[in-house]
């Protein structure tokens, strides 16, 4: 991680030198994100604050302000508050919901602000200058590919879904498309709402219902924690793989430690907010062209590259 930071610092450092020539007074970058109400959003808050601290220290000419909101309505108000007092040079936003935030963000844009949208898109894509997101289909697909490989193309699976949303649908679609044509059979698929307790119960029920389960896929790490506890308690030895997704530090730690049941992890990193903030600042300060769409891939986290995704100080 240190290495990555150094490289980033060097890159930004060179931007700084280039940037000072044009930067007059302080440029304001507002970051509007959901408040931490579960693991993933907690990670987003952590990484956004880390980015703000690093950039504010590195660039005297830039001020990054992070504002968290507990609901879509609160986020709309936060946008009004942020843009009321001063002119925003850039806004980095992870919208609570697409529909409700589209018009308010457009109003900010109309005042001449650079708009970076992260993760959840707005209803009108023409508003954003930069769109950065992870790839939920790849999360499902890469997990499936690994399972196919590891199980020799056949076996019995059970799947735990999250909350019925586009994110969940895409992950499941990526997974289902990838296992099509193989002899991997999904015995059962049910919602456990991205909640460890519900996942624990559901996994107990799966174990009671099916005498032979080769692998489990919980499409999120909070659920995986519940699954692992249920499997451990049952004492069953037939489960060879139990995989999650998102990149929670506890699970990445398992990968680093060479856990046999969870040897890999698929990232949908909350740290993407940091990427977005740095890119936005690079445009503002260094005139680096960033307009467009960036899709972060979901490469498998294995023992070799796990350190890159391990943030021991993050709450997630």
């Amino acid at each position, binding site marked *: 991680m240190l290495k990555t930071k150094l490289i980033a610092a060097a890159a930004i450092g060179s931007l700084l030198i280039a940037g000072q020539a044009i930067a007059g007074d302080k440029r304001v970058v507002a970051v509007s994100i959901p408040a931490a109400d579960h693991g993933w959003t907690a990670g987003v808050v952590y990484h956004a604050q880390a980015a703000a601290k690093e950039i504010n220290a590195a660039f005297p000419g830039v001020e990054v302000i992070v504002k968290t909101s507990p609901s879509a309505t609160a986020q709309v108000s936060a946008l009004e508050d942020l843009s009321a007092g001063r002119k925003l040079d850039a806004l980095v936003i992870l919208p609570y919901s697409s529909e409700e935030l589209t018009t308010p963000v457009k109003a900010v844009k109309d005042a001449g602000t650079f708009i970076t949208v992260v993760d959840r898109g707005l209803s009108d894509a023409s508003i954003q200058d930069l769109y950065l997101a992870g790839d939920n289909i790849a999360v499902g697909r890469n997990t499936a590919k690994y399972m196919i490989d590891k199980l020799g193309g056949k076996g019995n699976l059970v799947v735990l879904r999250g909350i019925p949303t586009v994110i969940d649908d895409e992950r499941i679609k990526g997974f289902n498309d990838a296992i099509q044509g193989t002899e991997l059979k999904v015995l059962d698929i049910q919602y456990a709402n991205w*909640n460890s307790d519900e996942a624990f119960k559901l996994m107990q029920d799966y174990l009671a219902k099916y005498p032979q389960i080769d692998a489990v896929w919980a499409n999120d790490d909070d659920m995986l924690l519940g699954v692992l506890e249920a499997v451990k308690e*049952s004492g069953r030895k037939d489960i060879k793989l139990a995989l999650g997704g998102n990149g929670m530090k506890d699970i990445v730690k398992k990968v680093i430690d060479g856990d046999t049941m969870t040897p890999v992890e698929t990232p949908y990193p909350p740290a993407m907010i940091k990427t977005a903030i740095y890119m936005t600042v690079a445009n503002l300060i260094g005139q680096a062209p960033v307009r467009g769409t960036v899709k972060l891939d979901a490469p498998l986290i294995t023992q070799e590259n796990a350190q890159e995704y391990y943030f021991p100080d993050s709450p997630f």
Partner: protein
Amino acid sequence: MSAVVGSTPLRQEREWNIGWADVGPFLALLALLLIGFVINPDFLSATNLGNVITRSAFIAIIAVGATFVISSGGLDLSVGSMAAFITGITIMFMNSMAPEWGLAAIPAGMVVAIVVGTACGLMNGLIVTVGKIEPFIATLGTMGIFRALITYMSDGGTIPIDRSLREAYRPVYFGTVAGVPLPILISIAVAAVASFALYKMKYGRKCAAVGANEDVARYSGISIIKTRTIAYAIQGACVAIAAICYVPRLGAATPTTGVLWELQVITAVVIGGTALRGGKGHVWGTVAGAVILELIANLMVLSDFVSEYLVAGVQGVIIIIAMLIQRFSK
């Protein structure tokens, strides 16, 4: 509203397990078990039933406390958030004491849980009784407060229990005595103590009297404030006991711990035969209600003919049918 409750013959209140209101939930439970067996014979396997009843323990224990609150004419929406808050405090306390006290941190943490739980309940009670605020609003407020506190304490992430304590604490959820899982024994013990308090002690009579008709109770010299406040404190203690059993299951508290438990708790109490408007409480019915709720969820997974998208809907229908069975069996 007091007519229905008031017409219950006094004689019945003095005895145990008499009348349809007491038997109803158990009939519904029996019917559910039979249906389950027909759908999937694995349903009645010892492991499955053991799992299901064990995990219904949290709701059952909290719902026993809620039986006091509801029977005395109150309502507590904060129990789910409170459970998460107490879980968080308990884990943080145990973790901070573990280096010095070693395994003694576990029982000490349990004491802290009970003290904090009772204090939280007492606070709810005082806001409702002394503050004279509608229980729905008062506990909706504290529900938000407890949820915010656990989110703040965990930075939105998780508060995991210290590794050195984890294995030693595990048996409290996963352990068995003579083959019966410990959480089941704990909930039976809690229910036994509660039914003694509710049916054999003076306080239980006061509770039902206050819930059935406040004015009559006041004229009989019963302190409404004291009776209701104690009910909330009992509720808090029950939430703490549930939290103590909950900690070892996943070994962590998160901002999503106990979300919507309050609705499950209230449903369990009502399925168990206690009227939401107050009056006589049915402790054992409440326990049966909690098991019924968990069995329905289990049955949804074990049966193959319900689409994953429709599970919640079918659960709703079954709960309503279970209530109708009770109504018409009277």
